[in-house]
C-alpha cells in the first residue's frame, strides 16, 4: 500500500469515527429525562474510555502477558524472565544503576532548583540568572550528552608522543586535571563512577525546570504569611524551613514526581554514550533486548518492571492532589 493510500484510509477512519460519535450524541440528546442524561454522559465519556482502553490498557496488559513467554513469544515460561532480571549479574547492574538514577536525579535537581530559586528571588539580576539555568532545558538530551561527552573526553597525559609532547587534552575536565598536574581520568569508562557522571547531565537539564516551577510558587506565597512570620522574629534559614518549604509543598511534589518519572524512562543519555561499561539502565536495556537481541520475553518483562516502579509514584501523586483539593 502506498503512502497516499494509507493517508486516504486514515482519513476514512477518522470520518467514520466522527460520524459514529455524532450519531450517538444526536440520539442521546433526544432523551431529556434523568436516564437520558446518564446516557448522554456515557456517550461523552465513550471516546475517551475507548482511546484509553485501546491505546493504553490493551498494550499494557498484552506486554505483561508476553513477559510470561520465551524470547519468541511461543512457549510459556512463567516468571522465568523476572527471575533472570533479579539473578543475571548484568541485569542486576542495570537495576542498581536505575536505582542510582531515580534516587539522585529528582532529589538533587529539585534541591539545586529550589536553592537557586530562593537565592535569586528578588535580586537585581533575577531574570538573567534564571535564564542561564533554564537554558539547558531547551537542549535535547542527545545534544546535551554530546556536549558532555566533550567535557568528559579523555586523553592519557602519561603518554609522551614521538615529538616529545603530551597528547592535547580536548576534554574540559581532564584539561583542568592536567593543568593542576593530576593524572587524567576516564570519566565515561570507569564503573561505577561513570553512571554518576551521566546523572550529572540529567540534573544539569532538569534543575532549570525545577527552578522555574518553584520560583513561581515562591512568588505566590501570600505576603501576609511572610509578614506575620517576620513579626514573630522568623528569618533566614528558619523562614525557609518553616514558611517557604511548607507553602510550596504541592509544587515540590509535582516537580519531584515529574522528574522521577522522566528519570525512570531515561534512555537517550545512555544510548548516546553507548550503553556499555556498566552504564545501562532499565529503559535502555528494554530497547536493546527487544530491538537488538530480539528477546521479546525479557524485554516485555523489563518494560513491566518500569511500569511497576512508576505506579507508586503516580499513586502518591494522586493522593497528594486529593488531599490538597480536600483542604
Amino acid at each position, binding site marked *: *500500500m502506498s503512502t497516499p493510500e494509507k493517508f486516504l484510509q486514515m482519513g476514512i477512519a477518522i470520518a467514520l469515527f466522527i460520524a459514529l460519535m455524532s450519531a450517538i450524541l444526536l440520539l442521546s440528546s433526544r432523551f431529556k429525562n434523568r436516564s437520558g442524561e446518564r446516557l448522554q454522559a456515557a456517550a461523552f465519556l465513550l471516546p475517551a474510555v475507548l482511546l484509553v482502553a485501546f491505546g493504553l490498557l490493551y498494550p499494557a496488559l498484552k506486554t505483561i502477558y508476553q513477559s510470561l513467554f520465551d524470547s519468541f513469544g*511461543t512457549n510459556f515460561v512463567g516468571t522465568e524472565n523476572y527471575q533472570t532480571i533479579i539473578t543475571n549479574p*548484568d541485569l542486576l547492574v542495570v537495576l542498581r544503576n536505575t536505582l542510582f538514577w531515580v534516587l539522585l536525579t529528582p532529589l538533587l535537581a529539585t534541591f539545586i532548583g529550589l536553592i537557586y530559586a530562593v537565592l535569586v528571588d528578588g535580586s537585581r539580576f533575577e531574570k538573567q540568572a534564571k535564564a542561564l539555568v533554564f537554558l539547558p532545558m531547551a537542549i535535547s538530551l542527545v545534544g546535551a550528552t554530546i556536549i558532555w561527552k566533550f567535557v568528559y573526553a579523555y586523553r592519557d597525559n602519561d*603518554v609522551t*608522543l*614521538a615529538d616529545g609532547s603530551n597528547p592535547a587534552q580536548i576534554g574540559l575536565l581532564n584539561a583542568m586535571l592536567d593543568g593542576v598536574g593530576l593524572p587524567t581520568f576516564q570519566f565515561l569508562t570507569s564503573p561505577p563512577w561513570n553512571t554518576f557522571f551521566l546523572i550529572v547531565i540529567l540534573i544539569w537539564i532538569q534543575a532549570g525546570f525545577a527552578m522555574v516551577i518553584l520560583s513561581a510558587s515562591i512568588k505566590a506565597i501570600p505576603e501576609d504569611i511572610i509578614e506575620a512570620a517576620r513579626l514573630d522574629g522568623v528569618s533566614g534559614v528558619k523562614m525557609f524551613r518553616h514558611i517557604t518549604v511548607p507553602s510550596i509543598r504541592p509544587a515540590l511534589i509535582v516537580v519531584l514526581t515529574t522528574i522521577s518519572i522522566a528519570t525512570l524512562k531515561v534512555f537517550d543519555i545512555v544510548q548516546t554514550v553507548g550503553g556499555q561499561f556498566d552504564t545501562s539502565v532499565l529503559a535502555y536495556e528494554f530497547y536493546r533486548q527487544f530491538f537488538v537481541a530480539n528477546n521479546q520475553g525479557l524485554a516485555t518483562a523489563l518494560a513491566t518492571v518500569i511500569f511497576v516502579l512508576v505506579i507508586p509514584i503516580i499513586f502518591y501523586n494522586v493522593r497528594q492532589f486529593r488531599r490538597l483539593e480536600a483542604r
Partner: protein
Amino acid sequence: MRSARSRRGLTGIAALAVSAIALTGCASEETGGTQTASGTSPGEGRAECSQLTQFGDLTGTEVRVFTSIVQPESDAQQASYELFTECTGAEVAYEGSQEFETQLSVRVRGGNAPDIAYVPQPGLVNTMVATGQTVPAPQPVSDNVDEFFPEIWREYGTVDGTFYAAPLGANVKSFVWYSPSFFEENGYEIPETWDEMTALSEEIAQSGTKPWCAGIESGTATGWTVTDWLEDAILRDQGADFYDQWVNHEVPFDDQAVADSLDRVGGILKNGDFVNGGFGDVRSIASTSFQDAGYPILSDNCAMMRQASFYAAQWASAPSAEGGNAPVVAEDGDVFAFYLPVTQDNGERPVLGGGEFVLAFDDRPEVQAFQTYLSSDIWANEKAEATPDGGWVSANTGLDINLLNSPIDVLSAETLQDPNAVFRFDGSDQMPSAVGAGSFWTQMTDWITGKSTGDALTQIEESWPTS
C-alpha cells in the same frame, strides 16, 4: 506487496499446473524461474548486453533498489547502472538509508518491500527469507555466481538449499595498516607469520615506540573491532571448518580452542608493552574511537593497526590531513596495509571479510535482469571504472584488477582472488543478533577493560538464544 500478492492470486492456478509439469523434471528446484518480457531488447547486438537481451524490451519499467550505501559512495553505484539502462531500457530508482537494517524489516512487514535490497549480512538474508516475501535468484544469476565467485559466497546467499542472493561488493578485514616510510627508516620487514609479527612487535617496543594502536569505541556498536581480531585468529589457528561450526554454534562459543585464540589476540591487545601507541594504556583502547585509532601511525607514535580495507577512507580525515595534504595510501606512500600473517604453515591464506548480497522481493523481468547484470563480470568492471577515487572491490573473479584505481583496492582484490585464499564472512554478522550485535560486542569490550578470557566467553555462550 500488491503486485506480488495479487499476481500470485491470478496466476496461482496456472503456476500449480506448470509446477506439476516442472516437478517431473527435477527433485529440488534450487533457483527461481526466469521471467521475460516481449519485444526486442534495446541492447540487441551489443556484446556487453549479451546476458540481458534475453529479458526482452523493458523500456518504461523501473527497479526500486533499497540499500545502506549512501553518499558519496552511492554516486559511483548509480553511475555503474547506466549500462544496464542502455541495454534493457529499464530505469533504476535508487534509495540509500543510514537506517537500512531497521527500515528494511519495517517495510517488508508493512507490505512495502523494495524490488531489490543490498543486504550487508548473511544473517539478515536468512531473516528476510523467513518472512516469505523474498524470491529465489533466477537461473542466469545462479550461473554467474557459479562462474565468477568462490563457492563459499554462494553458500552465504543460500537458505535451506535455495539460492537467493548473489554477492555484490566485498571488503577485506584481514589487514594490518602500517607506515611504509617508518618501516623503511628502521629496517623493519613486513612479517609473513604471526611469530615474526610478535618478534617485530617486541623489536619496535624495545626501540621505545608502542608497536600497536587500537580503538574499539563505536557508539552502541563498541567492541566490534575486537570481534574481528578474534575471528581472524580463529580462522588462522583452527581453520575454516572449525570457524563455520563456531559461527553456527555447533561447538560452544566458549570452546577451549576459542579461548586459546582469544588469548593469542590478548598477547597483543592486552599487552601493556605493545599498546596503545599515542593514546595510553590498554584501557584507552576502549575509549578510543575506531576512526581515530590509526592516526598515530602517521606521526610514528605507533607502528601497526589491524583494521579492514574500508579504513582507507578514514585517512583523509586525519588531523594531519588539513590543508589538502591528505596521507597517500600506497605501498610507497604514507600509509598502506599488509595481510595479517598466518599462525600455521599449511599453505592456506584465510581471509576474513564482509560484503553485500543482492536480495530480490519481486520476480518481474526487469528485476531479474538487474540481478543478472549485478552478478556479472561486466558490472564489476563497470563499477571499477565508475569509482575513480577507489574504495570499492568485489570478490568477482571476472573483475579486471587493472581497472581498479587505488593501490589498497588492488591489494584487496589480489587477496580475494588469491588461489590459496580461504574466504570467510564476518562471524558476528552471521550470529543471532542477541550475540552478534549484543553480547559478543559488550563482552569483548569488558575483556579489553579487564575481564578474563574465560568469563567473557562463558557469558557470551550463556546469552546465545535457545531454540
